[in-house]
């Protein structure tokens, strides 16, 4: 089913929207969640959360590219879950997870909390930075830090040795840090 039609089903509150979204993007979202969480069950939970997140956020949102809309939601939820898990492993109190409202605020164009505004500024800066990178360098950076792909996989897909990928990532990280410092965001 075309994205436009699936989004239409979401807007009409037709429950089949979820099964269509799952059939079309389930594996994609699952890959992102698995890359981040390294646990199949947790990843599946996360993807399920994504579907209901989509259900709750449409309307008001009408994404043009459903893949990225769902992918971003999955990534956000997976990072939250990972953060909470790591905190518990360290024995500390789990930090308050980023709320679903923050996610929808962030996903929509409306201004949200102070944190959301801060993230939006940083997001705009990062997009500017990414736009100035050579395509391959940008892709490797996003492969690792957006899709959380293992270095071994990036190495294979881009045709580099792992050490080359690591050195490339290190260089891009340093450049990003310098850029954010210049922008007063770091």
């Amino acid at each position, binding site marked *: 089913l075309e*994205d436009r039609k699936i989004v239409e089903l979401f807007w009409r509150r037709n429950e089949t929207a979820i099964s269509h979204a*799952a*059939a*079309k*993007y389930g*594996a*994609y979202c*699952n*890959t992102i969640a698995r*890359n981040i969480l*390294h646990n*199949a*069950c*947790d990843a599946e*939970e996360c993807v399920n*959360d994504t579907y*209901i997140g989509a*259900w*709750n956020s449409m309307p008001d949102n009408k994404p*043009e590219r*459903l*893949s*990225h809309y769902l*992918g*971003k939601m999955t*990534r*956000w939820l997976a*990072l939250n879950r990972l*953060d909470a*898990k790591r905190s518990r492993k360290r024995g500390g109190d*789990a930090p308050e997870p980023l709320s*679903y409202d923050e996610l929808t605020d962030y996903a929509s164009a409306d201004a949200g909390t102070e944190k959301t505004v801060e*993230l939006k500024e*940083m*997001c*705009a800066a*990062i*997009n500017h930075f990414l*736009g100035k990178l050579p*395509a391959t360098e*940008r*892709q490797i950076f*996003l*492969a690792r*830090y*957006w*899709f959380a792909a*293992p270095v*071994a*996989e*990036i*190495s*294979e*897909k*881009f*045709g*580099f040795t792992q050490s*080359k990928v690591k*050195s*490339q990532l290190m260089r891009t990280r340093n450049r990003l840090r310098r850029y954010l410092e210049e922008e007063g965001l770091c």
Partner: protein
Amino acid sequence: MLEKNILLAMNGADDAFLEETARKLGYISGGRKIKAPASYSRRTSRRFAAMLIAACLLLSLGLVAYAADLFGIRALLIKRDDMSPTRSENGAFVSITQPQEVPEEMSTEIKAKIDNSTKAWAEWDAWRKDNRPSRPEVFLEPEGCDMTDIIENGDGTYAVIFRDAVLTHDDSGEVVDVEYVEMERRTATAEEYEREMEHMLAGSQSYPGYDFNYDVTTAEAAEKLEEIAAKYGLELRRERNAMYQNFGSFTQFNSLEEITAKINEVCAGGKSFFRTEPTGYDKFYYFNEGTFAVSFFTTDDMTNEGTYCYLYNSPYGTLSSGFEIVGEIEDADAMSTYTHATPDGTELTVLHNGADMFAYVYLENSFVTMSFHQLKGLSADEINAIIDMVDFGVI
């Protein structure tokens, strides 16, 4: 905190950047998925006790079940060279769908069913590999190529630029810079570019009517899959039906009663699937040939901090890879095994190492696994109590 903010802020990365990266990784194109990456290198070898004791035959309530006893983790352990654990050096991957190995003492009838499904999958897997689209020659990397850039020329053709990575080292030999020097440039036609994309995305186009785990992408593949299933007398998983109750803290989708009623109808022939009702469900999904999964909570806390169990029923008569749901365990060597008999007489093998907890049983017609989740771990008594919530006699 800064790093976390950067990671979170990156969530707003431009869709065009994500699209190009996802394509390069082979994850997605035009909104279609591709199978999960499996590009891992083997890092560790593992030892496992090869203890086998006679399987125990149980006859109870018309149910025949075989306990694997100290056959233990081998029933679930995935042995593949292209997957290496990420949690620890002693980590391993386990399947919670089809059994990966069968005890020698297993009834010949059950063993034959599992072997049959395994052979069928091997045939399907081989066919898929042999029938992947071939790559256009113009895109085949020359020797020494470290990177390929593809750039639209604006006239319908594409520049294919192969680059060699030239490294700069510091005095200690550490790489401090990489420069990608063009080594060869070719021109690809639009048709060649499309074929290259097709190759890269092979497996990404889900053909309707089949569980995505089959990776059916074309009518030809669908025909072949049907042919193999018929040849081995196996069923296929087709339309997936799902119900959800708990989605973390923000909503409920189906009611507990609604899901319980459906589970009883689909999984227990109208009888009660649970001896003790769960406190809630995370999800329930099923296929019409008999495969189903129930993820249920046993605590009032239905968040990730609560206790839940993921139960998967995989009929032997279904064509399955056994990799539909894969879990990663922290320490395979530390996994201890015991058996537990439920009130209906079904004996399950229980595996636990403090962090990971599983149970499984070879029923007469299907393999059932349970994966338990509680961040603080569970005692044997607690695991046994969860197992006893289910009436295996009705499956």
